[in-house]
């Protein structure tokens, strides 16, 4: 029972990160038909924004020293800002380009952000102590659970609910859903393409920032590749969920999280180092079974 509880919490908290990542990618794909591979580097950028630029091994905490109620909005704002900026400076020029071109552009942007960080901070991982007391374990029904896991899960659910409310209850949300389904028709009804796309980038950037905050609290380290690694899994989740389907992305994110944790438990110790091979083996089987993902999206129409 306690072991089960522990597995459940592990799976949910890992899945939460994947779900948030997948959601950020699916949102942009919905309105732009763009798979934004720079998304992972937004995550790293947001985390590094907490440090003062320096190539020393020791991190000089900067914004990270702010009280929580200022730090969180600031990092969210940085994520949104970076994401919107990349839309205005880069992706806007590729609106009518084919998806492969847009994807390459996003790769390139990702490298630019990564090397920008590298220049300022060097490639050495640094340790940073952000809300470290959250990682100390507490006992819940005999299972040892770090409060951070609970917070991760609760925060993720709160984000999902807020996003659902935004999409279902607000004018912007309605326009974003319409644009994801049929952009040209939405524009013919007066929906402003630029506004909708910038809003999608802002939300996606905030999701990246949220992931950054959770990741850095969990691991206590700041690493230039931290975003990119997660982005890869998140991308797989969006494909499994059915590119463009938001619920699909979330569910697939949790599924991959659960599969990863489960494999860790059930695989014989010798096979554990190869856990990811088993997880992605399952992904391949899944895609053979359902090539369009679990929830193929209604957004079959091409954009303008």
């Amino acid at each position: 029972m306690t072991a089960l509880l522990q597995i459940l919490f592990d799976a949910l908290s890992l899945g939460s990160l994947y779900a948030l990542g997948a959601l950020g990618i699916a949102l942009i794909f919905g309105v732009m038909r763009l798979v934004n591979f720079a998304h992972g580097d937004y995550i790293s950028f947001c985390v590094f924004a907490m440090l003062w630029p320096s190539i020393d091994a020791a991190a000089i905490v900067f914004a990270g020293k702010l009280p929580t109620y200022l730090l969180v909005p600031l990092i969210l704002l940085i994520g949104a800002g970076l994401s919107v900026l990349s839309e205005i400076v880069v992706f806007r020029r590729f609106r009518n380009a084919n998806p492969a071109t847009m994807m390459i552009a996003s790769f390139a942007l990702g490298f630019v952000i990564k090397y920008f960080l590298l220049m300022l901070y060097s490639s050495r991982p640094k340790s940073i102590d952000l809300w470290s007391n959250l990682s100390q374990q507490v006992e819940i029904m005999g299972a040892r659970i770090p409060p951070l896991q609970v917070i991760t899960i609760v925060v993720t659910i709160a984000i999902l609910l807020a996003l659902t409310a935004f999409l279902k209850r607000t004018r912007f949300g309605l326009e974003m859903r319409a644009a994801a389904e049929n952009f040209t028709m939405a524009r013919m009804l007066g929906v402003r393409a630029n506004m909708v796309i910038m809003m999608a980038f802002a939300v996606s950037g905030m999701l990246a920032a949220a992931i950054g905050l959770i990741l850095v609290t969990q691991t206590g380290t700041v690493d230039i590749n931290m975003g990119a690694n997660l982005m890869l899994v998140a991308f797989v989740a969006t494909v499994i969920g059915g590119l463009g389907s938001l619920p699909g992305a979330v569910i697939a994110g949790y599924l991959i999280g659960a599969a990863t944790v489960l494999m860790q438990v059930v695989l014989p110790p010798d096979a554990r180092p190869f856990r990811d091979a088993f997880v992605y083996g399952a992904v391949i089987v899944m895609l053979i079974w359902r090539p369009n993902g679990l929830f193929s999206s209604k957004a079959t129409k091409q954009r303008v």
Partner: protein
Amino acid sequence: MSLLSVENISVRYGQLTALRRASIKVSEGETLFVTGPNGAGKSTLLKAIAGVVTPREGFIRFAGQQIAGKAPEDIARLGFSMVPEGREVFGGLTIEENLRLGTGMRADKDQAARDLEQVYAVFPMLKDRKDQQAGVLSGGQQQMLVIGRALMAAPKLIAIDEPSLGLAPKVIDDVYATLIRLRDSRGLTLLIVEQSATRASLTGGRMVLMRSGEVALEGDARELSKGDALRQAYFGYGDH
């Protein structure tokens, strides 16, 4: 002065010329039918006005503004409401959400709420099913929905591309009866693409016939569908 005036616009898709110096005019309160064989460029004409395709030459003036080359949302915001070929309902949104999308450009939210009630009064069936996904509606119901959606924008002109496409004759009668009722009660200005000249003459209004991207013939819908000129122009006799 005309509400809409299209002057000598040409549109090409790659090598193919879909519109060749085509011109039409629509005055306030009138109904203009655009008819012609498949591939004549009727839909392209509407798309060019709506800003979905950009003409290579020519002028489009709507509500006193030059609109050729403007973005579709800006043209819509001037009061041009488009119901494209194939209707294009948002199948994943509810019926009410489809209707509310039409009002985005309007500042007067109270008026928009009243208009929603009026659209429901015209189409009670939509009100009954307002929270259902629009994708489950039949073709005829979808046609009513997109006409309602176009009305929600309180437009100066509604352009409809083949409202009868894929509908049973009885349903086509219903659609046109609704359009005529709306036109007569509200003084709507309509630009309708319709393959059937008979339907145009029953509805009344002016008519242009397009062929190979050009406007080949123009006149009163009833007059034109009586004589031989239409058939000749349609099939291209006596052209040489």
